[in-house]
């Protein structure tokens, strides 16, 4: 089955302009999502995951955040240059988004129905009554009991898990091609997390909606994603299908992330954590951004910025000099000029 590419991000650069000058939050990233695919975007807080999603939606804080380079192609249309009018048509209709905080993501002063019907009526010609029926149908679809009653309730009358279901219902109301989920389960407790993930997976299968799952939780990735993009300090450091990333991670950061996941079968005094912290965006301008925290770092890592190397032609790419050398020695290519050993 040939897959259609719904979203492709090429060389995206997003910066924040503050009193301290330009701060690059997302620096030259490329990735794509195919129809019906679930892509995991993983990384620690502050690595640029959310900024990437807000760039796609065109919802960067006005006057502060700006896409300064690259392309965001939605079915071939570059959203970076799209007008606000066109973006309004796309938001919620073609590309929808759900957020981390279900507790605060719904307007406390309007009923669930009001907010859901509004989402439906922006993009359809349905009248109020039809939109209401559609809203009830959506609430049932996301597994909310007594949908007819909930529609007239206010957000504070629902639990966090229920509110996230409402958010999903709202996002899915117009059957978007892409759903961006920004840490949708982070604020929920574990049993609810599993239910929400299952719901999203079901919706993905039933409606062929591509999902960009932003998370820092590798468990979530293993559960639902087909491919993974690992981000670090505004750059993609590794990309591949979920099995490859979990079984044969190449980048020292990815390896560290996977090691940091506690294993219930092992008894440990201390849980593993990658030493150090994520550098502030824009703090590192030379060399690999992970070098300062990497136990394998050598001279070159501090001086030059590694490229994303395709390891085996299957889409497993890694931004690390260790693997560049491995690749080059394998293919017998000459050492790149200027490389220091």
């Amino acid at each position, binding site marked *: 089955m040939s897959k259609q590419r719904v979203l492709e991000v090429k060389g995206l650069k997003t910066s924040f302009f503050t009193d301290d000058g330009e701060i690059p939050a997302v620096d030259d990233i490329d990735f794509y999502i195919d129809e019906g695919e679930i892509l995991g975007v993983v990384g620690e807080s502050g690595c640029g995951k959310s900024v990437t999603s807000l760039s796609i*939606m065109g*919802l960067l804080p006005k*006057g502060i955040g700006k896409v300064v380079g690259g392309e965001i192609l939605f079915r071939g249309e570059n959203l970076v240059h799209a007008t606000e009018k066109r973006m*309004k*048509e*796309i*938001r*919620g*209709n073609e590309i*929808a*988004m759900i*957020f981390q*905080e279900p507790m*605060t*993501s*719904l*307007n*406390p*002063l*309007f009923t669930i129905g009001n907010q859901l019907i*509004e*989402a439906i009526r*922006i*993009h359809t010609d349905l009248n109020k009554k039809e939109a209401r029926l559609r809203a009830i149908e959506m609430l049932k679809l996301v597994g909310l009991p007594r949908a007819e009653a909930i529609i007239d309730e*206010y957000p*504070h009358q629902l639990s966090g898990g229920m509110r996230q279901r409402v*958010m999903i219902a*709202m996002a899915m109301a117009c059957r978007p091609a892409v759903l961006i989920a920004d840490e949708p389960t982070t604020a929920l407790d574990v049993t609810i997390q599993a239910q929400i993930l299952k719901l999203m997976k079901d919706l993905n299968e039933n409606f062929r909606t591509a999902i960009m799952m932003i998370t820092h939780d590798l468990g979530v990735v293993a559960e639902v994603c087909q491919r993974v993009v690992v981000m670090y300090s505004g750059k993609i450091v590794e990309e591949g299908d979920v099995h490859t990333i979990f079984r044969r991670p190449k980048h020292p950061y990815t390896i560290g992330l996977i090691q940091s996941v506690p294993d219930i079968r092992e008894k440990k005094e201390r849980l593993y954590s990658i030493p150090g912290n994520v550098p502030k965006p824009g703090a590192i301008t030379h060399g690999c951004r992970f070098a300062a925290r990497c136990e394998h770092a050598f001279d070159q890592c501090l001086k030059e910025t590694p490229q994303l190397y395709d390891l085996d032609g299957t889409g497993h790419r890694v931004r690390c000099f260790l693997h560049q050398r491995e690749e080059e020695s394998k293919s017998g290519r000459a050492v790149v000029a200027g490389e220091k050993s």
Partner: protein
Amino acid sequence: MFAYTVRRVFMVIPVLLGMSLVVFFMIRAIPGNPAQVILGQKATKEAVAALTHKLGLDQPWYVQYVKYLGGLLRGDLGESIRTGTAVSHEIWPYLAATLELSLAAMFIAVIIGVNAGIVSAWFQNSWFDYAAMVLALIGVSMPIFWLGLMEQWIFAIHLDWLPTAGREEVRNPIEPITHLYLIDTLLQGNTEQFVEVLQHLILPSVALATIPMAIIARITRSSMLEVMKSDYVRTARAKGLSMFWVVYKHSLKNAIIPVLTVIGLQTGLLLGGAILTETIFSWPGIGRYIYDAIGYRDYPVIQSGILVVATIFIFINLIVDLLYAAIDPRIKYN
């Protein structure tokens, strides 16, 4: 909600009781005897004493106070010493004049203030934002009597667009029904007089509106800025909603609560504090009524006038509290 409202209404009683006590003593602290003021400086001591006795002012303070309270309970606000008419009868035309003026002023202040605040927040750091906030700062700091005089000088004297003072055209007096002249002229279907009343209303209400307008604009702006950073506003935008609806539906309803508080307080302040404007524009309002009464040491008028204004103030704020619950479903009064 109903039980809460009833409870709040009953809570008004101790407040008014305290209020009446404070006013009762404060006016008696003003030097001068009403009888002396009425009879003039050349009156004989006997005549003053006789009138003082007739007015009951020679009795101990607690007797006077209890008598006054007793009257209040029967709905009797006392009798004006100067005119001899019942205050409850006399007060309404003045109160109506002030109500009309303050409501017109608040209407201007709310419409312009809230919208200026919204647009300033929407286009934060734009030229509009800067201009509006500088104007608001000037508005808050401007002495109202100076503004009033400038208005008269420019719009009434130089340009001759609007009348200088008063509530109505002296040559074309209004037959009062409710004493709210806008309503009266409408009820009588007299468009000519309606326009005249409106013309008289413009300058004083703009002068009176300036300070509340500036305060409302600043509060609305900061409240809106806070709300527009919230997650649900981002959600609304992510739905594809236009900025207009994001601002005027999702943000405004959340941002309006602190603004309502200010609107309530300012309306109350205008009722009692319109005296400067009323003096400059010869507006026969309650502020002037009480002020003149102080000149005559007309104790019943001062006491009851202040009490009436205080009662209205308290009820306006009760309405504001009830509005909170109407706007925010999370607020429940039990």
